[in-house]
Protein backbone atom coordinates (compact mmCIF):
# COMPACT_ATOMS: atom_id res chain seq x y z
CA UNK A 1 0.00 0.00 0.00
CA UNK A 2 2.95 2.33 0.37
CA UNK A 3 4.17 2.23 -3.25
CA UNK A 4 3.68 5.71 -4.65
CA UNK A 5 2.28 5.44 -8.16
CA UNK A 6 1.52 9.12 -8.71
CA UNK A 7 3.27 11.96 -6.94
CA UNK A 8 2.08 15.54 -7.37
CA UNK A 9 4.11 18.31 -5.77
CA UNK A 10 3.27 22.02 -5.63
CA UNK A 11 1.28 21.78 -8.85
CA UNK A 12 -0.13 25.01 -10.33
CA UNK A 13 -2.06 25.34 -13.58
CA UNK A 14 -3.33 28.59 -15.01
CA UNK A 15 -5.70 29.32 -17.88
CA UNK A 16 -5.26 32.83 -19.27
CA UNK A 17 -4.02 34.08 -15.92
CA UNK A 18 -6.81 32.42 -13.93
CA UNK A 19 -5.54 29.96 -11.34
CA UNK A 20 -7.30 26.68 -11.96
CA UNK A 21 -5.09 24.59 -9.73
CA UNK A 22 -3.09 26.12 -6.86
CA UNK A 23 -0.39 24.33 -4.88
CA UNK A 24 -1.70 20.78 -5.23
CA UNK A 25 0.31 18.22 -3.23
CA UNK A 26 -1.01 14.67 -3.51
CA UNK A 27 0.64 11.27 -3.23
CA UNK A 28 -1.35 8.39 -4.70
CA UNK A 29 -0.42 4.89 -3.60
CA UNK A 30 -0.91 1.52 -5.24
CA UNK A 31 -4.36 0.17 -4.42
CA UNK A 32 -5.87 3.54 -3.57
CA UNK A 33 -9.45 4.04 -4.71
CA UNK A 34 -9.81 7.78 -4.90
CA UNK A 35 -12.88 9.90 -5.44
CA UNK A 36 -11.83 13.26 -6.86
CA UNK A 37 -14.63 15.63 -5.89
CA UNK A 38 -15.44 19.27 -6.36
CA UNK A 39 -17.83 21.66 -8.08
CA UNK A 40 -17.62 22.49 -11.78
CA UNK A 41 -14.57 24.61 -12.47
CA UNK A 42 -12.66 23.38 -9.43
CA UNK A 43 -10.01 21.80 -11.66
CA UNK A 44 -10.85 18.08 -11.35
CA UNK A 45 -10.54 17.38 -15.05
CA UNK A 46 -7.52 19.67 -15.33
CA UNK A 47 -5.77 17.69 -12.59
CA UNK A 48 -6.44 14.42 -14.42
CA UNK A 49 -5.25 15.92 -17.70
CA UNK A 50 -2.11 17.22 -15.98
CA UNK A 51 -1.32 13.79 -14.57
CA UNK A 52 -1.71 12.31 -18.04
CA UNK A 53 0.58 14.88 -19.65
CA UNK A 54 -2.28 16.46 -21.61
CA UNK A 55 -2.11 19.74 -19.72
CA UNK A 56 1.07 21.84 -19.47
CA UNK A 57 2.06 22.67 -15.88
CA UNK A 58 2.85 26.21 -14.81
CA UNK A 59 4.63 25.13 -11.64
CA UNK A 60 5.34 21.97 -9.74
CA UNK A 61 6.17 18.44 -10.72
CA UNK A 62 4.42 15.16 -11.36
CA UNK A 63 6.05 11.76 -11.07
CA UNK A 64 4.50 8.56 -12.40
CA UNK A 65 5.80 5.26 -11.02
CA UNK A 66 8.91 7.10 -9.87
CA UNK A 67 9.63 8.66 -13.29
CA UNK A 68 9.19 12.38 -13.98
CA UNK A 69 6.19 12.92 -16.27
CA UNK A 70 8.37 14.35 -19.04
CA UNK A 71 10.40 11.17 -19.29
CA UNK A 72 7.59 8.69 -18.53
CA UNK A 73 7.21 6.05 -21.22
CA UNK A 74 5.23 3.16 -19.69
CA UNK A 75 1.84 4.52 -20.69
CA UNK A 76 0.38 1.02 -20.87
CA UNK A 77 0.31 1.11 -17.03
CA UNK A 78 -2.26 3.92 -17.04
CA UNK A 79 -5.70 3.96 -18.66
CA UNK A 80 -8.27 6.72 -18.92
CA UNK A 81 -12.00 6.11 -19.21
CA UNK A 82 -13.37 9.16 -21.01
CA UNK A 83 -17.04 10.08 -21.05
CA UNK A 84 -17.21 9.35 -24.76
CA UNK A 85 -15.07 8.92 -27.88
CA UNK A 86 -15.46 11.90 -30.21
CA UNK A 87 -14.42 9.91 -33.30
CA UNK A 88 -16.86 7.07 -32.75
CA UNK A 89 -19.84 8.97 -34.12
CA UNK A 90 -18.57 9.85 -37.59
CA UNK A 91 -17.61 6.39 -38.90
CA UNK A 92 -19.17 3.21 -37.57
CA UNK A 93 -16.98 1.65 -34.89
CA UNK A 94 -18.00 -1.66 -33.39
CA UNK A 95 -18.01 -2.41 -29.67
CA UNK A 96 -15.31 -5.01 -30.25
CA UNK A 97 -13.06 -2.58 -32.15
CA UNK A 98 -13.49 -0.02 -29.39
CA UNK A 99 -12.52 -2.41 -26.61
CA UNK A 100 -9.59 -3.87 -28.53
CA UNK A 101 -8.33 -0.35 -29.28
CA UNK A 102 -7.34 -0.21 -25.59
CA UNK A 103 -4.45 -2.52 -26.50
CA UNK A 104 -3.11 -0.30 -29.30
CA UNK A 105 0.36 1.03 -28.58
CA UNK A 106 3.57 1.90 -30.43
CA UNK A 107 5.11 -1.17 -28.79
CA UNK A 108 2.80 -3.48 -30.74
CA UNK A 109 3.27 -1.67 -34.05
CA UNK A 110 5.24 -4.43 -35.75
CA UNK A 111 2.96 -7.35 -34.90
CA UNK A 112 -0.73 -8.25 -34.88
CA UNK A 113 -2.66 -8.31 -31.59
CA UNK A 114 -1.53 -11.27 -29.49
CA UNK A 115 -3.79 -14.02 -28.18
CA UNK A 116 -3.35 -12.55 -24.69
CA UNK A 117 -4.44 -9.08 -25.82
CA UNK A 118 -7.52 -10.46 -27.53
CA UNK A 119 -8.35 -12.60 -24.51
CA UNK A 120 -8.08 -9.54 -22.27
CA UNK A 121 -10.58 -7.73 -24.51
CA UNK A 122 -12.92 -10.76 -24.49
CA UNK A 123 -12.70 -10.95 -20.70
CA UNK A 124 -13.30 -7.21 -20.38
CA UNK A 125 -16.44 -7.43 -22.52
CA UNK A 126 -17.74 -10.25 -20.33
CA UNK A 127 -16.87 -8.21 -17.22
CA UNK A 128 -19.09 -5.34 -18.36
CA UNK A 129 -21.74 -7.80 -19.54
CA UNK A 130 -21.73 -6.64 -23.16
CA UNK A 131 -20.25 -9.66 -24.95
CA UNK A 132 -23.52 -10.16 -26.84
CA UNK A 133 -23.29 -6.64 -28.26
CA UNK A 134 -19.70 -6.93 -29.52
CA UNK A 135 -20.73 -6.63 -33.19
CA UNK A 136 -22.99 -3.62 -32.63
CA UNK A 137 -22.13 -0.10 -33.68
CA UNK A 138 -20.95 1.74 -30.58
CA UNK A 139 -23.25 4.69 -31.21
CA UNK A 140 -26.34 2.46 -31.30
CA UNK A 141 -25.85 1.51 -27.63
CA UNK A 142 -27.46 3.42 -24.77
CA UNK A 143 -25.38 5.98 -22.91
CA UNK A 144 -24.87 3.64 -19.97
CA UNK A 145 -23.82 0.77 -22.22
CA UNK A 146 -21.38 3.01 -24.08
CA UNK A 147 -19.82 4.03 -20.77
CA UNK A 148 -19.41 0.35 -19.89
CA UNK A 149 -17.73 -0.25 -23.27
CA UNK A 150 -15.23 2.49 -22.45
CA UNK A 151 -14.59 0.91 -19.06
CA UNK A 152 -14.01 -2.41 -20.83
CA UNK A 153 -11.58 -0.65 -23.13
CA UNK A 154 -9.54 0.46 -20.12
CA UNK A 155 -9.72 -3.05 -18.62
CA UNK A 156 -8.46 -4.57 -21.88
CA UNK A 157 -5.30 -2.48 -21.57
CA UNK A 158 -4.46 -4.24 -18.27
CA UNK A 159 -3.35 -0.93 -16.76
CA UNK A 160 -2.36 -0.69 -13.08
CA UNK A 161 -3.94 2.73 -12.74
CA UNK A 162 -7.42 3.45 -14.10
CA UNK A 163 -8.78 6.99 -14.20
CA UNK A 164 -12.44 7.61 -14.84
CA UNK A 165 -13.92 10.94 -15.86
CA UNK A 166 -17.41 11.28 -14.37
CA UNK A 167 -18.25 7.60 -15.00
CA UNK A 168 -21.68 7.80 -13.38
CA UNK A 169 -22.82 11.09 -14.94
CA UNK A 170 -26.14 10.63 -16.65
CA UNK A 171 -26.44 6.91 -15.89
CA UNK A 172 -29.59 5.28 -14.54
CA UNK A 173 -29.54 3.42 -11.22
CA UNK A 174 -29.00 0.00 -12.83
CA UNK A 175 -25.96 1.15 -14.78
CA UNK A 176 -24.53 2.96 -11.76
CA UNK A 177 -24.91 -0.24 -9.73
CA UNK A 178 -23.20 -2.25 -12.49
CA UNK A 179 -20.36 0.23 -12.56
CA UNK A 180 -19.97 0.17 -8.77
CA UNK A 181 -19.83 -3.64 -8.86
CA UNK A 182 -17.13 -3.47 -11.52
CA UNK A 183 -15.13 -0.97 -9.47
CA UNK A 184 -15.36 -3.36 -6.53
CA UNK A 185 -13.86 -6.17 -8.62
CA UNK A 186 -11.06 -3.91 -9.82
CA UNK A 187 -10.34 -2.84 -6.26
CA UNK A 188 -10.18 -6.49 -5.20
CA UNK A 189 -7.58 -7.06 -7.93
CA UNK A 190 -5.44 -4.33 -6.39
CA UNK A 191 -5.81 -1.79 -9.17
CA UNK A 192 -5.35 1.88 -8.37
CA UNK A 193 -8.49 3.79 -9.30
CA UNK A 194 -9.16 7.50 -9.54
CA UNK A 195 -12.76 8.52 -10.15
CA UNK A 196 -13.61 12.11 -11.01
CA UNK A 197 -17.16 12.61 -9.83
CA UNK A 198 -19.81 14.99 -8.54
CA UNK A 199 -21.46 12.25 -6.65
CA UNK A 200 -19.66 9.95 -4.24
CA UNK A 201 -22.70 8.17 -2.75
CA UNK A 202 -22.91 5.31 -5.26
CA UNK A 203 -19.29 4.33 -4.76
CA UNK A 204 -18.61 5.61 -1.25
CA UNK A 205 -18.24 2.15 0.27
CA UNK A 206 -15.42 1.36 -2.19
CA UNK A 207 -13.55 4.63 -1.87
CA UNK A 208 -10.47 4.57 0.36
CA UNK A 209 -9.78 8.25 0.01
CA UNK A 210 -11.66 11.36 -1.04
CA UNK A 211 -9.92 14.43 -2.43
CA UNK A 212 -12.02 17.57 -2.61
CA UNK A 213 -10.98 20.43 -4.88
CA UNK A 214 -12.36 23.95 -4.87
CA UNK A 215 -11.36 27.20 -6.56
CA UNK A 216 -8.93 28.86 -4.18
CA UNK A 217 -6.24 31.53 -4.03
CA UNK A 218 -3.88 29.30 -2.05
CA UNK A 219 -4.70 25.61 -1.96
CA UNK A 220 -6.99 23.85 -4.40
CA UNK A 221 -7.14 20.73 -2.24
CA UNK A 222 -9.76 21.38 0.45
CA UNK A 223 -9.91 17.90 1.90
CA UNK A 224 -7.79 14.79 1.47
CA UNK A 225 -8.72 11.83 3.61
CA UNK A 226 -11.01 8.87 4.09
CA UNK A 227 -14.71 9.26 3.31
CA UNK A 228 -17.17 10.50 4.35
CA UNK A 229 -16.21 14.01 3.36
CA UNK A 230 -16.88 16.40 6.29
CA UNK A 231 -19.94 18.50 5.60
CA UNK A 232 -18.07 21.80 5.60
CA UNK A 233 -16.35 20.75 2.37
CA UNK A 234 -19.10 18.76 0.77
CA UNK A 235 -22.04 21.01 1.47
CA UNK A 236 -22.26 23.06 -1.71
CA UNK A 237 -21.99 20.57 -4.47
CA UNK A 238 -23.96 17.90 -2.64
CA UNK A 239 -27.03 20.07 -2.64
CA UNK A 240 -26.46 21.05 -6.20
CA UNK A 241 -26.24 17.44 -7.24
CA UNK A 242 -29.30 16.28 -5.30
CA UNK A 243 -31.28 18.88 -7.16
CA UNK A 244 -30.11 17.54 -10.50
CA UNK A 245 -31.01 13.97 -9.59
CA UNK A 246 -34.43 14.86 -8.21
CA UNK A 247 -35.68 17.24 -10.81
CA UNK A 248 -34.31 16.17 -14.13
CA UNK A 249 -32.38 13.18 -15.39
CA UNK A 250 -28.97 14.42 -16.53
CA UNK A 251 -28.34 14.18 -20.25
CA UNK A 252 -25.42 12.04 -21.38
CA UNK A 253 -22.51 13.83 -22.90
CA UNK A 254 -23.37 17.28 -21.59
CA UNK A 255 -20.50 17.50 -19.11
CA UNK A 256 -17.48 19.30 -20.56
Amino acid sequence: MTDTVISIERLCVEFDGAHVLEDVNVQIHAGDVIALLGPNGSGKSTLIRAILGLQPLDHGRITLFGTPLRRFKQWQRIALVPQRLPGASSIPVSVWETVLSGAISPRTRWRPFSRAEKNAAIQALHDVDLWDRRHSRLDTLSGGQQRRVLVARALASNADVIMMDEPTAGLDAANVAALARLLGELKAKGRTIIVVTHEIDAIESLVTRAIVLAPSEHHSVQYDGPPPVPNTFAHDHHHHHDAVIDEAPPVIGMEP
Partner: protein
Amino acid sequence: MTMIWDFDFMRRALLAAALVGLIAPLIGVFLVQRRLALLGDGMGHVALTGVGLAFLLGTAPIPTAMATAALGAFLIEFIRYRSRTAGDVALALLFYGGIAGGVLFASLAPGRASSSLNSYLFGSLSTVASGDLWALGALVVTVLLILLFFGRELFAVSLDPDIAQVQGIKVRAMSTLMAILAAIVVVVGMRVVGLLLVSAIMIVPVAAAQQVTRSFRATAALAVVIGVIASVTGLVGSFYVEAPPGPAIVIIALACFAILAIVAVPIRRRRREHS
Protein backbone atom coordinates in the same frame (compact mmCIF):
# COMPACT_ATOMS: atom_id res chain seq x y z
CA MET B 1 -14.71 -4.47 -73.36
CA THR B 2 -12.25 -6.10 -75.77
CA MET B 3 -12.25 -2.83 -77.64
CA ILE B 4 -11.05 -0.94 -74.60
CA TRP B 5 -8.50 -3.55 -73.68
CA ASP B 6 -7.01 -3.21 -77.17
CA PHE B 7 -5.67 0.26 -76.43
CA ASP B 8 -2.42 0.43 -74.50
CA PHE B 9 -3.32 3.79 -72.99
CA MET B 10 -6.67 2.43 -71.78
CA ARG B 11 -5.02 -0.57 -70.15
CA ARG B 12 -2.71 1.79 -68.28
CA ALA B 13 -5.55 4.13 -67.38
CA LEU B 14 -7.68 1.23 -66.09
CA LEU B 15 -4.84 -0.03 -63.92
CA ALA B 16 -4.19 3.46 -62.58
CA ALA B 17 -7.91 3.91 -61.87
CA ALA B 18 -8.07 0.61 -60.00
CA LEU B 19 -5.08 1.67 -57.86
CA VAL B 20 -6.76 4.97 -56.99
CA GLY B 21 -10.04 3.25 -56.20
CA LEU B 22 -8.16 0.88 -53.91
CA ILE B 23 -6.15 3.29 -51.75
CA ALA B 24 -8.19 6.49 -51.79
CA PRO B 25 -11.02 5.13 -49.60
CA LEU B 26 -8.50 3.48 -47.24
CA ILE B 27 -7.16 6.94 -46.41
CA GLY B 28 -10.57 8.59 -46.67
CA VAL B 29 -11.98 6.43 -43.89
CA PHE B 30 -9.50 8.00 -41.43
CA LEU B 31 -10.09 11.49 -42.79
CA VAL B 32 -13.86 11.19 -42.38
CA GLN B 33 -13.49 9.86 -38.87
CA ARG B 34 -11.26 12.79 -37.90
CA ARG B 35 -13.73 15.17 -39.56
CA LEU B 36 -11.07 16.22 -42.05
CA ALA B 37 -13.05 15.35 -45.16
CA LEU B 38 -11.95 18.53 -46.89
CA LEU B 39 -8.26 17.99 -46.24
CA GLY B 40 -7.88 15.97 -49.45
CA ASP B 41 -9.56 18.76 -51.38
CA GLY B 42 -7.02 21.26 -50.15
CA MET B 43 -4.18 18.88 -50.81
CA GLY B 44 -5.34 18.60 -54.43
CA HIS B 45 -5.24 22.37 -54.78
CA VAL B 46 -1.73 22.51 -53.35
CA ALA B 47 -0.59 19.72 -55.70
CA LEU B 48 -1.79 21.84 -58.62
CA THR B 49 0.98 24.31 -57.86
CA GLY B 50 3.37 21.39 -58.20
CA VAL B 51 1.97 20.55 -61.63
CA GLY B 52 2.25 24.18 -62.74
CA LEU B 53 5.79 24.28 -61.41
CA ALA B 54 6.64 21.11 -63.33
CA PHE B 55 5.42 22.72 -66.58
CA LEU B 56 7.44 25.83 -65.86
CA LEU B 57 10.66 24.05 -64.91
CA GLY B 58 10.26 21.19 -67.36
CA THR B 59 10.43 18.57 -64.58
CA ALA B 60 8.28 15.42 -64.35
CA PRO B 61 4.81 16.27 -63.00
CA ILE B 62 4.35 13.32 -60.61
CA PRO B 63 7.51 13.83 -58.49
CA THR B 64 7.10 17.61 -58.51
CA ALA B 65 3.45 17.39 -57.47
CA MET B 66 4.40 14.81 -54.82
CA ALA B 67 7.04 17.13 -53.36
CA THR B 68 4.65 20.10 -53.34
CA ALA B 69 1.81 18.10 -51.81
CA ALA B 70 4.10 16.65 -49.12
CA LEU B 71 5.31 20.15 -48.29
CA GLY B 72 1.65 21.21 -48.19
CA ALA B 73 0.90 18.34 -45.80
CA PHE B 74 3.55 19.56 -43.36
CA LEU B 75 2.32 23.14 -43.68
CA ILE B 76 -1.29 22.15 -43.10
CA GLU B 77 -0.45 20.15 -39.97
CA PHE B 78 1.75 22.98 -38.72
CA ILE B 79 -1.03 25.51 -39.25
CA ARG B 80 -3.65 23.24 -37.69
CA TYR B 81 -1.47 22.72 -34.63
CA ARG B 82 -0.33 26.31 -34.23
CA SER B 83 -3.53 28.25 -34.69
CA ARG B 84 -6.54 26.49 -33.25
CA THR B 85 -9.01 29.30 -33.95
CA ALA B 86 -7.84 30.75 -37.24
CA GLY B 87 -6.98 27.27 -38.51
CA ASP B 88 -9.55 26.96 -41.24
CA VAL B 89 -8.97 30.47 -42.56
CA ALA B 90 -5.24 29.75 -42.76
CA LEU B 91 -5.99 26.50 -44.57
CA ALA B 92 -8.29 28.31 -46.98
CA LEU B 93 -5.48 30.75 -47.78
CA LEU B 94 -3.13 27.87 -48.50
CA PHE B 95 -5.69 26.23 -50.78
CA TYR B 96 -6.42 29.40 -52.77
CA GLY B 97 -2.69 29.89 -53.11
CA GLY B 98 -2.39 26.35 -54.45
CA ILE B 99 -4.86 26.85 -57.30
CA ALA B 100 -3.63 30.35 -58.12
CA GLY B 101 0.00 29.20 -58.13
CA GLY B 102 -0.80 26.22 -60.34
CA VAL B 103 -2.65 28.20 -62.99
CA LEU B 104 -0.14 31.04 -62.88
CA PHE B 105 2.95 28.85 -63.24
CA ALA B 106 1.31 26.84 -66.02
CA SER B 107 0.47 29.96 -68.02
CA LEU B 108 4.02 31.24 -67.63
CA ALA B 109 5.34 27.95 -68.95
CA PRO B 110 6.38 27.70 -72.60
CA GLY B 111 4.22 25.78 -75.10
CA ARG B 112 0.67 24.53 -74.57
CA ALA B 113 1.13 23.75 -70.90
CA SER B 114 -1.90 25.69 -69.73
CA SER B 115 -4.26 23.74 -71.96
CA SER B 116 -2.94 20.41 -70.66
CA LEU B 117 -3.48 21.70 -67.14
CA ASN B 118 -7.12 20.85 -67.79
CA SER B 119 -6.26 17.15 -67.91
CA TYR B 120 -4.74 17.45 -64.43
CA LEU B 121 -7.83 19.20 -63.11
CA PHE B 122 -10.42 16.67 -64.31
CA GLY B 123 -8.36 13.63 -65.23
CA SER B 124 -7.58 12.19 -68.59
CA LEU B 125 -7.72 8.81 -70.28
CA SER B 126 -4.60 9.21 -72.31
CA THR B 127 -2.02 10.76 -69.99
CA VAL B 128 -0.91 7.73 -67.98
CA ALA B 129 2.51 6.79 -69.36
CA SER B 130 3.99 3.38 -68.57
CA GLY B 131 6.67 5.04 -66.42
CA ASP B 132 3.88 6.74 -64.45
CA LEU B 133 2.36 3.37 -63.73
CA TRP B 134 5.52 2.22 -61.97
CA ALA B 135 5.60 5.44 -59.93
CA LEU B 136 1.93 5.01 -58.99
CA GLY B 137 2.53 1.37 -58.08
CA ALA B 138 5.42 2.32 -55.81
CA LEU B 139 3.32 5.00 -54.09
CA VAL B 140 0.42 2.57 -53.58
CA VAL B 141 2.73 -0.05 -52.05
CA THR B 142 4.15 2.65 -49.76
CA VAL B 143 0.67 3.62 -48.59
CA LEU B 144 -0.32 -0.01 -47.96
CA LEU B 145 2.86 -0.70 -45.96
CA ILE B 146 2.36 2.44 -43.85
CA LEU B 147 -1.24 1.40 -43.16
CA LEU B 148 -0.13 -2.11 -42.25
CA PHE B 149 2.25 -0.84 -39.57
CA PHE B 150 0.62 2.41 -38.44
CA GLY B 151 -3.05 1.74 -39.20
CA ARG B 152 -4.01 0.86 -35.62
CA GLU B 153 -2.32 3.95 -34.21
CA LEU B 154 -3.98 6.12 -36.85
CA PHE B 155 -7.29 4.53 -35.83
CA ALA B 156 -6.68 5.25 -32.14
CA VAL B 157 -5.81 8.88 -32.90
CA SER B 158 -8.95 9.29 -34.97
CA LEU B 159 -11.10 7.83 -32.16
CA ASP B 160 -9.79 10.27 -29.57
CA PRO B 161 -6.45 12.09 -29.81
CA ASP B 162 -6.21 12.63 -26.04
CA ILE B 163 -6.75 8.99 -25.21
CA ALA B 164 -4.31 8.02 -27.95
CA GLN B 165 -1.68 10.23 -26.37
CA VAL B 166 -2.29 8.54 -23.02
CA GLN B 167 -1.65 5.23 -24.80
CA GLY B 168 1.80 6.53 -25.67
CA ILE B 169 0.98 7.25 -29.31
CA LYS B 170 2.73 10.21 -30.94
CA VAL B 171 -0.41 12.09 -31.95
CA ARG B 172 1.25 14.90 -33.89
CA ALA B 173 3.45 12.50 -35.83
CA MET B 174 0.40 10.41 -36.71
CA SER B 175 -1.53 13.50 -37.84
CA THR B 176 1.33 14.51 -40.11
CA LEU B 177 1.55 10.95 -41.42
CA MET B 178 -2.17 11.10 -42.19
CA ALA B 179 -1.74 14.34 -44.15
CA ILE B 180 1.19 12.85 -46.08
CA LEU B 181 -0.87 9.75 -46.92
CA ALA B 182 -3.61 12.04 -48.23
CA ALA B 183 -0.99 13.87 -50.29
CA ILE B 184 0.20 10.59 -51.83
CA VAL B 185 -3.36 9.60 -52.73
CA VAL B 186 -3.91 12.99 -54.35
CA VAL B 187 -0.85 12.51 -56.54
CA VAL B 188 -1.79 8.91 -57.40
CA GLY B 189 -5.25 10.09 -58.39
CA MET B 190 -4.38 13.25 -60.24
CA ARG B 191 -3.76 11.64 -63.64
CA VAL B 192 -7.00 9.68 -63.86
CA VAL B 193 -9.46 11.44 -61.56
CA GLY B 194 -7.95 14.93 -61.65
CA LEU B 195 -6.91 17.20 -58.80
CA LEU B 196 -10.26 18.94 -58.38
CA LEU B 197 -12.19 15.71 -57.77
CA VAL B 198 -9.58 13.35 -56.38
CA SER B 199 -10.68 13.93 -52.80
CA ALA B 200 -14.19 12.81 -53.77
CA ILE B 201 -12.89 9.31 -54.40
CA MET B 202 -11.43 9.37 -50.86
CA ILE B 203 -14.62 10.56 -49.23
CA VAL B 204 -17.71 9.49 -51.24
CA PRO B 205 -17.12 5.70 -51.09
CA VAL B 206 -16.64 6.00 -47.31
CA ALA B 207 -19.78 8.09 -46.90
CA ALA B 208 -21.65 5.51 -49.00
CA ALA B 209 -20.33 2.47 -47.12
CA GLN B 210 -20.87 3.77 -43.58
CA GLN B 211 -24.63 3.87 -44.14
CA VAL B 212 -24.86 0.09 -43.94
CA THR B 213 -21.80 -1.02 -41.95
CA ARG B 214 -21.32 -1.55 -38.24
CA SER B 215 -17.55 -1.51 -37.86
CA PHE B 216 -14.58 0.55 -38.97
CA ARG B 217 -13.00 -2.42 -40.70
CA ALA B 218 -16.17 -3.28 -42.65
CA THR B 219 -16.59 0.37 -43.63
CA ALA B 220 -13.06 0.48 -45.02
CA ALA B 221 -13.54 -2.81 -46.90
CA LEU B 222 -16.86 -1.85 -48.48
CA ALA B 223 -15.53 1.62 -49.32
CA VAL B 224 -12.64 0.02 -51.20
CA VAL B 225 -15.07 -2.15 -53.19
CA ILE B 226 -17.14 0.92 -54.06
CA GLY B 227 -14.00 2.91 -54.86
CA VAL B 228 -12.68 0.31 -57.30
CA ILE B 229 -16.09 -0.21 -58.95
CA ALA B 230 -16.64 3.53 -59.38
CA SER B 231 -13.12 4.17 -60.70
CA VAL B 232 -13.12 1.35 -63.23
CA THR B 233 -16.69 1.72 -64.50
CA GLY B 234 -16.39 5.51 -64.52
CA LEU B 235 -13.26 5.25 -66.63
CA VAL B 236 -14.86 2.83 -69.08
CA GLY B 237 -17.96 4.98 -69.27
CA SER B 238 -15.97 8.12 -69.96
CA PHE B 239 -14.24 6.32 -72.84
CA TYR B 240 -17.59 5.74 -74.56
CA VAL B 241 -19.14 9.15 -73.91
CA GLU B 242 -15.83 10.91 -74.57
CA ALA B 243 -15.86 12.84 -71.32
CA PRO B 244 -13.04 13.36 -68.82
CA PRO B 245 -12.91 10.36 -66.44
CA GLY B 246 -12.85 12.30 -63.15
CA PRO B 247 -16.44 13.53 -63.25
CA ALA B 248 -17.72 10.17 -64.53
CA ILE B 249 -16.01 8.32 -61.67
CA VAL B 250 -17.39 10.70 -59.06
CA ILE B 251 -20.93 10.53 -60.47
CA ILE B 252 -20.86 6.73 -60.21
CA ALA B 253 -19.53 6.92 -56.65
CA LEU B 254 -22.38 9.31 -55.80
CA ALA B 255 -24.84 6.87 -57.39
CA CYS B 256 -23.45 4.16 -55.08
CA PHE B 257 -24.08 6.53 -52.17
CA ALA B 258 -27.70 7.01 -53.25
CA ILE B 259 -28.32 3.28 -53.75
CA LEU B 260 -26.88 2.44 -50.33
CA ALA B 261 -28.91 5.23 -48.74
CA ILE B 262 -32.05 3.43 -49.94
CA VAL B 263 -30.78 -0.04 -49.02
CA ALA B 264 -29.80 1.18 -45.56
CA VAL B 265 -33.38 1.84 -44.44
CA PRO B 266 -34.59 -1.79 -44.20
CA ILE B 267 -31.17 -2.96 -42.94
CA ARG B 268 -31.23 -0.54 -40.01
CA ARG B 269 -34.81 -1.42 -39.21
CA ARG B 270 -34.02 -5.12 -39.07
CA ARG B 271 -30.98 -4.50 -36.84
CA ARG B 272 -33.06 -2.44 -34.43
CA GLU B 273 -35.63 -5.22 -34.12
CA HIS B 274 -32.76 -7.64 -33.58
CA SER B 275 -31.15 -5.82 -30.66
